[in-house]
Every structure is written in C-alpha cells, then in structure tokens.
C-alpha cells in the first residue's frame, strides 16, 4: 500500500481526521486510478475534485480543444488555455492543484479499437462523454473488463447519475436503455443548451462515487439511478435492475467484443464527420451560394427551423418564416411546395432533417444550407454572433 509523505499528510489532513476515511482511505486513493472519458462539462469538476482528493493516477481522454463557449461550465479550463488541447489544458491545472499525483493524457477519440487498451490500466472508468455511440462503447468495454463505470449525463436542467458494475452484481447501461434513440430525435447540449452549474453538480456526484468505489467506504449508487432537476431543485431515486437477457452483461451475452458504435446508433459514416462529401447532392447549398442568391431579384424563400429564442441571437439578413423543426410536420401546409426554398438552422443538422421531411411531403425545390448560421458567420458575415 502506498505511503504518504509529510507534505501529503498535511495536504490531506481534513480527510485523515475523518474517522471513516483516515490514513487507510487516503492511501487507497493514492494507490487508486481513474480514467476520465471526456474532459468537458462533467470531466471538469471530476478531474478537479479527484486530483484535489489525491487519487494517485488520473487518465484523461479527450480529442477536443478548449473553445471560448466551453468556459461557461468547463471549469478545469481557462481563458489562457483557449485553443489548446483539453487534455493538456486540464493537466496544467491539475498539476498546479496537486503535484503529488500522476496524470496521463490521451489526446485521442476513444474508439472500439483503443477502448480496452485505454481502460485496462485503471481501477475505475468515468463516463463524461456527450454522445450515445461513446456511451455504449464505454459501457460495453467496462463490462468486458469487469470495471465499474461511473455514469453521469445531463440535458438542459436535468441530470442522471449511477454506477454501472455488473461484476459486482449491478446492471449496465444497456440494462437501462437497450438501444439508443435514432440520431436527431434527442437534441445534444450544443443544440439544446445546458445550465452551466448542472455538470458541476452531476460531475461532483460522480466524483463522490469514484472516491467511495476506490476507498470502499459508504454505499455506492450501484442499482440506483439518481435524477436531479435543477429548476425544481429536486433529487429522486429510481431502482435499476440487471437484465438477465442483456446482450452484454446478461446470463448469455451475445455481444462479446466491441462493435461499430456509430452504426449501432444509426449514424451513417458520411453523415457524421464528412458533411462536405454530401455536398454534391442537389438538396444542399453552401452559405456563400445562398448569399449570392439573396442578391438576385428572384431570391428564394428562406425558412428558419430553429426556435424563436435562437433567432433573437443571430439570423440571416432575410428570413421569410420561422417554424421550429419539431412543429414542421403539422405546419407543412403553411409552406408552398412550388417556390424555391432554402432551409437553415444553427449548424445544419435540424435543417437537414427538415429538408428530408419536406422532400417526403413532396417538396422538390428545397435546399439545406449546409453548416447553418455557424458557417455563415465563418464564410459570409464575420460580424454575425456564433452561439
């Protein structure tokens, strides 16, 4: 068992004088290791509190760089680290907070090819990611390695926290949700927004569970799902059960090696990252092309499928109508299928769905403005606000 030196003893004194924790708990923390998948909203408080608490080895996995819009909630990063890798940014802050611990950074995306190798050296896995493919991947890999997976997820004002640990008799993520929603049905934080303090609360609850798992004190959330609603400031607890027929952790598992998680979540390879590839389809148009069309006498009809409060932040110079994408199917009759029409949103995702829906309803003269107002701000009007 790891020994503490005098500097560590004074640093951790408030832990050491907790009778339930004591020297033994602190040494277990020093001996312990945790892999944080995602160094963003949830990963920030997790990394800060686990480093401060003295977890001996913290691994950080993230491929993203710090952006100004992250700082509303991602408190491990700072204005001085905008533009640098999140893993490196976090490592600097954590080293400053606690020089006695080891930090390993992995500036990469976790994939089916590397997940098992990334996780293998660590005692506890923490899921602080922001998308369904990575959540299913993290779950399956942790189950296969028999490691606890401390799960947290957030949306707008609401959070969910639990510990998945089939090796200890508990359920896994697939027992809770056997299959993910089809892409586009559930908005992401980037689309739906998130209250900045929410990941602080949820990530800190996850950090608490990590400390309990490593030290063995208290009662973990295995088999219990905690729901938190920031607006009503209410916590609730639901029972989670292991599904004996679960394809990953059940009695006769059918998934015994990692699969293609993008495909499992219904994401087509061309849809995910190579938006440009689809540009040759007749139903897409770039912001620059739209800008040119707007200057012609017979300009097309411009449809915004965002919410009204988004239009108040940034909007194209001309918008003929705003119909939020979720209302489109019952308001289609407000649109004329005979006129040339361009549909836009913030990043091009919702407008693509809208164009698909309108095409299915018989509209043929419609185009999706690829990249949305974000790309318009980059390529046409640099004074437009990006949100």
């Amino acid at each position: 068992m790891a020994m503490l030196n005098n500097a560590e003893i004074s640093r951790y004194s408030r832990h050491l004088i907790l009778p339930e924790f004591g020297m033994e708990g602190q040494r277990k923390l020093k001996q312990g290791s945790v892999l944080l998948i995602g160094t963003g909203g949830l990963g920030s408080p997790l990394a800060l509190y686990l480093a401060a608490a003295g977890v001996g080895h913290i691994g950080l996995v993230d491929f993203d760089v710090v952006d100004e819009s992250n700082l509303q909630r991602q408190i491990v990063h700072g204005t001085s680290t905008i533009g640098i890798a999140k893993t490196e940014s976090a490592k600097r802050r954590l080293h400053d907070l606690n020089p006695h611990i080891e930090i390993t950074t992995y500036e990469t995306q976790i994939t089916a090819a590397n997940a098992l190798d990334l996780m293998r050296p660590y005692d506890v896995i923490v899921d602080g990611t922001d998308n369904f493919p990575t959540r299913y991947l993290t779950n399956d890999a942790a189950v296969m390695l028999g490691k606890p997976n401390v799960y947290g997820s957030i949306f707008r004002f609401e959070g969910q926290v639990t510990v998945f640990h089939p090796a200890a008799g508990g359920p896994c993520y697939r027992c809770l949700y056997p299959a993910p929603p089809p892409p586009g049905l559930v908005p992401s934080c980037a689309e739906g927004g998130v209250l900045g303090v929410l990941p602080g609360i949820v990530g800190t609850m996850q950090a608490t569970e990590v400390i309990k798992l490593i030290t063995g004190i208290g009662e973990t959330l295995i088999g219990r799902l905690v729901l938190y609603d920031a607006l009503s400031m209410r916590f609730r607890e639901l029972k989670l059960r292991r599904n004996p027929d679960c394809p990953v952790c059940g009695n006769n598992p059918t998934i015994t090696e990692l699969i293609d998680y993008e495909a499992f979540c219904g994401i087509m390879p061309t849809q995910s990252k190579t938006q440009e590839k689809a540009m040759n389809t007749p139903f897409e148009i770039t912001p620059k092309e739209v800008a040119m069309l707007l200057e012609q006498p017979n300009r097309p009809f411009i449809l915004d499928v965002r919410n009204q409060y988004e239009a108040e932040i940034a909007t194209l110079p001309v918008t003929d109508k705003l119909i939020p994408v979720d209302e489109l199917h019952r308001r289609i009759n407000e649109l004329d299928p005979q006129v040339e029409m361009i549909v836009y949103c913030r990043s091009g995702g919702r407008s693509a769905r809208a164009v698909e829906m309108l095409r299915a309803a018989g509209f043929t003269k419609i185009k999706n403005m690829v990249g949305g107002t974000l790309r318009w701000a980059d390529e046409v009007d640099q004074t437009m606000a990006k949100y």
Partner: protein
Amino acid sequence: MAVTISIPTALRQYTANNASMSLEADTVGNLLHGLIELHPDLGQHLFEEQGKLRSFVNVYVGDEDIRYLDGLDTPLKDGELVSIIPAIAGGQG
C-alpha cells in the same frame, strides 16, 4: 383514478412546457395515450410505429421500472407518480 405524470426536460417542448400533469387513468398505457391525446407531438417520442414503447424511453411507477411490473398494463393507484425517463447523453461538449 387521478395520477401525476412527470415530463422530463427533453420532452417538455412537446407538452407546452408542462413539467408534470395530473390525469385520470387506470393503467400506464392508458395514461400515456391520454397524455398523447392532449399533446400529439409527444407520440413519436414515446412509441414506435407498432405501438411499442421506444427502447430509449423508460417509464417508472414510483421508483420501479414498468418493465419489471406489467409493462403498459401496469395498474395505477390513485395519487401515484409516473415518470418518463428518456436516455440523455450530454456531458462533454
């Protein structure tokens, strides 16, 4: 039988921003269909076309998952709390 149904943030845009509603229903299935009658846009988010509850939507009566009760036929008692708990994935970005 008046029961309360709680609507998660992710679905409130389809219920005119109602966080919870009080409805009359004797089973979970009837409750959900009553809710959809009031808020038709919610339908596609709760049920597949074949009428099966979607696999990323869980429904709880009290603190128990209806999959471990009688599913949509689970009977409801007066004053019970039914919760819709969809999968949410946010956290990093």
